[in-house]
């Protein structure tokens, strides 16, 4: 049986890669994909701890996180389509429509 902390370290690496992408990229869709990467890293942590402590709650939480990620992806991509119609770009530096 593979020790739990190896899964946690893998999850930490994936989360760090996601943070790195969100901080350094300018393409809105790529930033969104990096957020999905971070969400998946957290899912892996939930499952690792669920196995470690024999809890069903971790699995249920992963189920809910998947549903919420689907909703988030739909709304976020709709926002980017709307932004593209207004500005012809999805560069997040150009997205200052709410700037006062």
């Amino acid at each position, binding site marked *: 049986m*593979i020790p739990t902390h190896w899964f946690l370290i893998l999850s930490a690496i994936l989360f*760090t890669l996601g943070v790195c992408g969100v901080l350094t990229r300018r393409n809105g869709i790529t930033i969104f994909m990096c957020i999905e990467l971070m969400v998946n890293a957290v899912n892996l942590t939930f499952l690792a701890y669920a*196995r470690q402590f024999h809890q069903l709650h971790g699995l249920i939480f992963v189920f809910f996180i998947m549903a919420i990620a689907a909703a988030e992806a739909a709304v976020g991509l709709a926002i980017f389509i709307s932004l593209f119609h207004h500005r012809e770009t999805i560069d997040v530096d150009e997205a200052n429509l709410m700037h006062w």
Partner: protein
Amino acid sequence: MIEYAVFFFFAAVAVVFATVVVIHRNPVVGALSLVASFFSLAVMYVLLEAPFLAALQVIVYAGAIMVLFLFVIMLLNLQHQHEPATRPIQQFLGYTSAAAFGVGLIYYLTKYAVLQSPTTPFVAGAREIGVALFESYIFPFEAVSILLLAAIVGALLLSARAGKGPAQASVTAQVDARAEHLP
């Protein structure tokens, strides 16, 4: 041990493809690499004795959500758009702070989170999850269904072109438009 070989192989695959997502300039390549990364994470879920969630990972994440991403990339024709380079100061600060965060996270994990391996296996199939979902988690379950409905309505409203309102093309207009092309 075959289990460890599988773990290390798919962990390497997941990390490499996640790196491609972060580095590559073409969003289509990024999206496809993310699909590969999600597949290897599904293998991790199988190793963690959660086969039901591994199936969900493949169907919902690699299947539905990533197809949505690819649809939007192709719809907006982004694969030919050149992404401007990030400012050097932002790149430097982003990489260093992310690296510091990652190193700190792994340091504290190896220091404090090294736990005794569980001796008895814990297998939770679809049945156990379903029973828990419809007994103790029935209220969050219903709340999530309402949230998904709100997300559908919000996505439709947001993605409609400004000025024209939400998708309002009537059925008869569509049928007429099609009839014109028929022989």
